């Protein structure tokens, strides 16, 4: 299960983050994408903690269609990943800052900047880069021994990084940490989802991915019996 679960998060990371043309083609190839969809559906459906094995009896359960978790439009979008060119074009319009249609997937922009003592006068604001979450991610990545490419180094709380960390923790066998991290670091996606929705149909693919993450988060919360409030960032 670990490998399949990790793959889901690596793939979502590649969708939101930088990827070379070759990497993206490999990621979005029919076979790889099909496996991603299968693994994703299991993750949404299976009542188990991340990477945990499913009870034998649960294997008998019928696979639920994506339609149980996503809208029809989202399902259609999820089954048709963008070409590299389309992915680049979307990023050029929506993953760049300062435009009306910007939907930069950086957690800092959707949470309070800081609640630390002696912070700047605008500390209580939302909509600012480099919030406490970014500082936390800097520290966490350093502690886990990860390095980011230049393009992401200033936004360690980018969704692509957060997904990659979940995947890496799973690969390392740190399943509890992965689960805890996922629950903590995806609460902001409810707000981000609203931003993506404003873009319209062009964003359906990414909206579907966000809904996948929110669905997985809900399942993990249910599995760990920890309330959302306790994990709210």
């Amino acid at each position: 299960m670990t490998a399949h679960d990790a793959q889901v998060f690596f793939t979502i990371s590649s969708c939101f983050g930088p990827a070379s043309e070759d990497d993206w083609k490999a990621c979005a190839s029919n076979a790889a994408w099909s496996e991603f969809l299968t693994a994703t559906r299991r993750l949404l459906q299976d009542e188990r903690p991340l990477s945990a094995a499913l009870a034998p009896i649960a294997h008998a359960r019928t696979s639920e269609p994506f339609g149980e978790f996503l809208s029809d439009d989202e399902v259609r979008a999820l089954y048709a990943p963008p070409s590299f060119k389309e992915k680049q074009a979307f990023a050029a319009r929506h993953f760049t800052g300062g435009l009306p249609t910007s939907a930069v997937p950086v957690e800092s922009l959707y949470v309070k900047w800081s609640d630390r003592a002696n912070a700047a006068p605008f500390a209580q604001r939302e909509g600012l880069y480099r919030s406490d979450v970014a500082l936390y991610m800097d520290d966490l990545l350093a502690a886990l021994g990860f390095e980011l490419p230049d393009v992401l180094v200033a936004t360690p709380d980018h969704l692509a990084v957060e997904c990659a960390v979940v995947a890496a923790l799973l690969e390392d066998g740190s399943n509890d940490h992965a689960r805890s991290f996922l629950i903590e670091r995806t609460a902001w996606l409810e707000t981000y989802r609203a931003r993506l929705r404003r873009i319209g149909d062009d964003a359906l693919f990414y909206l579907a991915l966000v809904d996948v993450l929110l669905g997985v988060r809900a399942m993990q919360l249910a599995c760990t019996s920890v309330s959302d409030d306790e994990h709210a960032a």
Partner: protein
Amino acid sequence: MSEHAITRRGFLARSAIGAAAVAGAGYVGFEAWKQAHADEPGELKKAGHSLCNSCSSKCGFTAYTRDGRLATMIGDADHPYCDGTLCARGYGYASIAYSEDRLTDPLKKQGDGTFAAIDWDTAYAEIAEKVQKIIDEDGPQALVMIQDPRPSGSFYTARFMQALGSANTYTHGVACNMSKVSGMTQAIGAGDFTSDVENAKMVMFIGRSYADGIRPASLHAMQKGYQKGAKFVMVDPRYNNSMHFCTEWVPIRPGTDLALILAMAHVLITEGTYDAEYIAANTVGFEDWAARVESCTPEWAEEITGVPAETIERLAHEMWEAAPQSSIEQGWRAATGCAHQNSGETARALCLFNTLLGCWGLEGGAYTPPSQSAGKLTDPKFAAPAKPEAKIIGAAEYPLSASSMGVSTYALSQIPEGAVKGVFFYQSNCVAGYSNPVQLAEFVEAAELSVAIDVQMTETCQACQYVLPDTCYLERTEVPEFVGGKVPVVSLRDQVIEKVHPNTRPVDQIFTELAEACGVGQYFQFTVEELGDAQLQTLGLSLEQLREQGTITFPEKALKYAPKTTWGTADKKVHFTSEACEKAGFPASPGWLEPQVMPGDGQFRLIGGKQTIHTHTQTANIPNLMEITKKYGLERIWMNAQVAEEMGIQDGDEVEVSSETYTGTTRVHVTNRIEPTSIYLPSHYGCSVPEQRTAYQVGLRQMDFVPFHIEPGYGGTMSQETLVTVKKVGA
């Protein structure tokens, strides 16, 4: 794992430490991390000195960071503009570094009018190709640069244009202090002077409010002067926030300040109460002006200004009684700067009135601040490109305009004429603020090449084909800034935080790379640090020293009070008459010149002006500052209480404001703090760029109501030469 799965970690690489780490070791959850940092907050570190960018004053401050983020800023005591204090907009504006609305990548306008990110190399290559085509077909004078002066911006933009062979580098002057600088230059050969407010017995302010268009040091001086018993008179259609330190408000009809000055001059000259000795020794053309103001009686001026004749007479007497420790303060953007058809002539008359007082150079009077500049750089790598032979476009049409600023609006108007083909903007929201936005946008959109460099999307960026993302002022080191004052200084804007967005670039880098792409890179073979250090070395200083101190004073150049007997004019004298003005169609000495428009029945003159917490359109998108706007309803227009009562309008009513160019609705602030013929609309609001999420569609924009026109001779934008009607919505 499946054979198809991504078997690597994508962009997430293991560091050397990480490769040896035990799985999951080092993991800390967010709540635990927060708790740990609450117990042990990061150390407050001095990050260096910088210069504020919330307005053009560029006050010096020391930045402190915690965990690499800006934590606080303390004004530098030696900086002559801030005097150890930053203003509210300075503190508020700092959040721009982290703003969601920051531009993060180079942008190119697409076929549908929207923008999409492109890479820097593509942007440079496409821009350079268009530059070359324009130069090949029309020559370098078909290229124009408009910039709001900042230390590096001023240097690099002018050098870039000069390297291309164009003389057309403009500032924001037309919408700021162009007419003041130009008018004063005709009279005293200098574009600026300073009233010694701190030591004066009396100062008259005409349309300038130190407490609204803040330089903290100016406000400190006003406070000290007030506490020492000085009489400060505020001549302004509005009872502005500087009234806290004023002893008298003279509510004048806007655009008529020239008549007030002429009448006060009339009083002094006819009564023989002026410094005849100073005038005889240091001026030319006095008799001409004396004859011209002979008919400008206080009674005549009362009809024009609305200020009672006895008040005018009394103020003239009081100014003389306080002389030479008295002066009329120079103003800036309003009456003398760019507001009216007579702004340039008002500035000229203002200098001449001060000359009657004999106040120049004396303690408590008015002085031209001493300054220091870098010496000539001898290293060949700094050699400047040849100066273009052509004159800046607009110099011939507006012969009195200061060439150091240039008439940018006229230059843009030459785009449809085919004389200008390409335009660059650096940190200039020209379209929203220099004249009528619809007209200016049309000009820019008609250009073959249009490039804007800024930190956030503006109306100007929106009109351009390419938008290049600048670093914010906290993220870059700039060329040293030399500032005049009682004690002149050099100060530094140094980088105090790391770049928030890796794909943004500082102005020095952008123009160096753009120059390379355009084939003139040989003039940019140095870093900004090398340039700054070389400039400072000519004064026996170093960049390292300036980095350490932030501001270095030149006490040997400090102001020494003494009658000023040498002026910047050709013959070193004050000129009551000007041949250049005569050639431009003005009288030799300044006489009465009516504003372009005067309100008739049911009409008002629309006036603008800064509020304490904002700078033009630049700060409106800062949430902390806009929150103050909304809390106090600062976006409302002001209307005189008696007029409002007669029109059945009450405080807070929604009203429709109309001019010949625009109609919009907003709420009204009914107040006795404005004279009856004026409507005040703060000049910060009405942002039409949805990218500025905080500022978008809050209030009305003053310039929408102003037609595209230019002050004859001087080139100012005549921002208050517009009439509006007001009616209650639903009435």
